[in-house]
């Protein structure tokens, strides 16, 4: 039952939904969050691959969560704390060597020196460049995108702020930012570094959770945005929630509750009702209706649009909405392990961050080629974490839980279907890891695969895309998810989009939820 006094519905109890709900409640709204799953938390909700093992949700690090969100919601009071190991990325190579990327660029450079003086020298400069451009992108991420159709006064102010942030970069870095943003990540790293073992792992940062290859225009922007506002630099972040991503979900739920937000799980919204160009309420799967003047959807944009009456949406807009690109190409694999895997060059300190398998640009590109032909990569790009190394509570004593992001595994398979490819993904992951951590297979007690189809069905991610919409340059800033609908108000008055399909996009940042609420409160 949803109480009659409610005036705001938030669809989806993922991190953006909870963050938006809490912020709206703080502003005096009476908010209910309607979640179709059994538990709140969205993609933060993890699993138990085996008794005593707790694996993270669809993502395994939380380094992008905005500090302002942590502060505003007082998440620490609700049990949220983070673990940030000194290591960011460990990249084992097929030849038995490895390269470790530390949070400290100078330390990374120092270790690189024995392999290439050139790359050691270049690394610090590259790190600075990434930080400088990312500092500008951090401004872009908090901005409410302008609409080129109606440049209002507020837009002009925003323009000035961004303009100033851009000018502050200086002419040289400014030009470099303009040049770098539309680049392919492979070009971004290839022109700076000479060693493939340095280039490859950095490239993976531009393709993870996307369907793009290293040579795709716009992937440099994915890497740069990942470093915006996170102190990521060239190597990116590796920040874990103590107690796993579930602990962050729990903290967000508690913080929302504390603000008076009501959360209703197993409440599946099947329709958003409109009347005379305005939102009128939502209809649930059991046929009950909730009448509210404000609906905030954190479902992906296509799903949100499909909840509306297509006649009301109109054929042109409907066609545009259906053309939003959501090519999910990521699978997740969780392992219950008997011991720490023996990755090349990896002592436990080096394995405490992200472990990346993507030894060269060509390897990254080849792995992503599979998307184009609708098949699972036989030699995938992998990003693994072993959260139990820094948080022993996540696995039985002496044992470990390992979480792997697997690419590419496109939702749309040309041959076969996901029922018979599920096991295959696990096998490929083990076979691949065996090459970089000999004996890996013998450590595996349980292997759990989350396919892109699972993501679509279980997490209601259309296309199986974790980021709700591909983060390409064609779905960016003022045209994410589409031009004219990027200012959070979505298709109808009173309906807002506050999930990863809106600017600034996917990842556990809380950016869309926070920005959307700012816009809602301005509009009210």
């Amino acid at each position: 039952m949803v109480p009659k006094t409610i005036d705001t519905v938030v669809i989806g109890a993922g991190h953006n939904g909870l963050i938006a709900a809490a912020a709206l409640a703080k502003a005096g709204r009476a908010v209910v969050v309607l979640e179709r799953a059994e538990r709140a938390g969205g993609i933060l909700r993890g699993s138990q691959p085996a008794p005593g093992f707790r694996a993270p949700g669809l993502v395994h690090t939380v380094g992008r969560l905005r500090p302002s969100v942590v502060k505003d919601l007082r998440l620490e009071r609700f049990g949220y704390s983070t673990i940030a190991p000194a290591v960011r990325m460990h990249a084992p190579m097929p030849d038995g060597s490895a390269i470790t990327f530390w949070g400290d660029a100078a330390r990374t450079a120092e270790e690189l020196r024995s392999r290439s003086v050139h790359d050691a020298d270049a690394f610090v400069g590259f790190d600075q460049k990434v930080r400088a451009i990312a500092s500008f992108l951090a401004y872009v991420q908090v901005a409410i995108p302008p609409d080129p159709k109606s440049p209002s006064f507020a837009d002009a102010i925003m323009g000035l702020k961004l303009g100033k942030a851009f000018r502050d970069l200086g002419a040289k870095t400014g030009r470099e930012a303009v040049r770098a943003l539309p680049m392919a990540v492979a070009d971004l790293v290839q022109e700076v570094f000479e060693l493939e073992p340095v280039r490859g792992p950095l490239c993976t940062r531009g393709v993870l959770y996307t369907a793009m290859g290293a040579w795709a225009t716009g992937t440099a922007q994915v890497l740069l945005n990942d470093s915006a506002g996170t102190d990521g630099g060239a190597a990116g972040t590796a920040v874990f929630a103590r107690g796993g991503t579930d602990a962050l979900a729990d903290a967000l739920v508690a913080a929302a509750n504390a603000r008076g937000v009501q959360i209703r799980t197993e409440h599946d919204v099947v329709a958003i009702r409109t009347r005379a160009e305005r939102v009128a309420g939502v209809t649930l799967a059991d046929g009950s209706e909730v009448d509210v003047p404000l609906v905030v959807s954190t479902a992906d944009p296509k799903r949100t649009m499909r909840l509306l009456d297509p006649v009301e949406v109109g054929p042109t807009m409907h066609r545009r909405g259906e053309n939003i690109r959501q090519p999910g190409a990521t699978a997740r694999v969780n392992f219950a392990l008997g011991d720490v895997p023996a990755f090349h060059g990896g002592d436990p300190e080096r394995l405490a961050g992200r472990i990346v398998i993507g030894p060269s640009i060509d390897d990254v590109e080849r792995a992503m080629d599979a998307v184009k032909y609708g098949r699972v990569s036989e030699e995938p790009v992998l990003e693994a974490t072993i959260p139990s190394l820094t948080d022993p509570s996540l696995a039985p004593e002496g044992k470990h839980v390992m979480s792997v992001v697997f690419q590419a595994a496109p939702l749309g398979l040309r041959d076969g279907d996901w029922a018979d490819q599920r096991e295959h993904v696990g096998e490929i992951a083990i076979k691949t890891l065996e090459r970089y951590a000999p004996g890996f297979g013998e450590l595996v007690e349980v292997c759990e695969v989350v396919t892109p189809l699972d993501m679509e069905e279980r997490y209601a991610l259309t296309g199986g895309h974790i980021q709700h919409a591909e983060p390409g340059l064609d779905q960016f800033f003022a045209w994410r998810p589409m031009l004219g609908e990027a200012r959070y108000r979505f298709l109808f008055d009173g309906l807002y989009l506050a999930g990863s399909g809106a600017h600034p996009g996917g990842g556990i940042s809380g950016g869309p939820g926070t920005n959307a609420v700012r816009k809602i409160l301005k509009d009210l």
Partner: protein
Amino acid sequence: MAKRYDAIVIGGGHNGLVNAAYLARSGLKVLVLERRHILGGATLTEEIVPGFRFSVFSYVVSLLRPEIIRELQLPKHGLEILPLDGTITPLDDDYLWRVNDHGKTIRELRRWSLNDAEAYEEYGPLMAEMGRFIKPILSLPPPDPAKLSPGEWLPLTPLAKQFRDLPRRLQTTFIQLMTMSAADFLDQWFETEPLKATMSASGIIGTFQGPRSPGTAYVLLHHYMGEIDGAFRAWGIPRGGTGAIAYAIAGAALAAGAEIRTEAPVARIRTQGGRATGVVLESGEEIEANVVMSSLDSRWTFIKLLDDSVLDPSFKREVLRYKYRGSSGKVNLALDGLPELACKPGTGEWLRGAISFSPSLDYIEHAYDDAKYGRPSARPYIDMIIPTLVDPSMAPPGDHVMSCFVQYAPYHLADGELWDDAKREAFGQNVIDTIEERFPDIRRHIVGHQFVTPKDIEDITGLSEGNIFQGELSLEQLFFNRPVPGWSRYRTPVRDLWMCGSATHPGGGIMGAPGRISALEYLKERRKGRRAA
């Protein structure tokens, strides 16, 4: 005693000649220096096989700016463009044939898909509208985004206003064209594979990208900006091959008083106190000028022709990291008769247009995959024309010339291998094998051939890494980043050294716009300088 000119133009390709013509027309004493014995650069007609004249490199024309044709009165100097009608995509036992007769094309498309026939009616006008919208950008010197001063952006304000006033539908299309892959863009419209593949092919020509690479939709538009006699998206061939364009422009330049010297390779650009003062030829001859205009690409201009000490190290780094990566080759065949398509026997009008080897997106994408990993495509994309069907003067009576643009042929081969005679031969034979799949009798007709690899393009024309656009047309190398970030306005850090080739905005193709805009910019600055003095 060194000779002295107002301006020296390095390179006798179409842009160099356009630049010289405009400078000479306004009364400057201009000298064009061409390395080879023949003018044209990559806009070249040469008799490679006796009696057969090949458009060795570029082979069709559409982008040549109408204002250049008008202002330089090129028809008076012998330019005649013959229309090229339609494109046929041969398949195993069928074909897709589009022609300039709209009704006929729609009927053909209906045979494939009713949806596509309907979408095609919308698509053409939309792209034409986009072409009209973007056209002003082609004749505009780009601003420097890092300066953000009103002066830099002023020329863009009408454009921004124009964008704001576009219907939402067109705004969306514009953004998509700037950012999407050709395949994704076309997927929104069409479902017929050979149609999507053939259309997407114009998004990849001359680039090192596949139809599914984001950014290729822009190249699609770049090729839609062409117009012949005011008709958008019309392709033609010049009578006498593309070299005839170069000679018509040269004619205009000579008529305006310019001097043109062939076999006059420039060894270096002379500088004094940070400004260019002239050139030294390989023969040792020195020639002085008030300004040196280079129509070469930035690598050749700055790295080969300038003294290292003149360049700021960070500028030099920018030049060195500019991407070329030639991706295409040519196969020119001399034939003693017309070959026949297996899927459409006979020698009818379908052979008079372009013949596109692009049966599916996967076919082209696989071709790109090969190149990505450093190999020529096993089954390449080929864009073929038989110019003698439109202009019989190119071959002896009854004989024919077949011009095949081939992609992909990467300049950089896997494992650091280099192009050599054996590899060129293997490349060419593989192309003929591919042609033979569609034209089974092709080998019977071949009486001579020319195989052109990207290395050959570099060696013959001087285009670095054989890139036909003097630098890849990727998003980060367009507009204000072309040819070097911060130096997009035809000037260079060396005073009185200017750039005027495809390396500069708005880029390559037989467009001539860089040559013209750079000349007008220089003349403007010269007038300003005079007034100040």
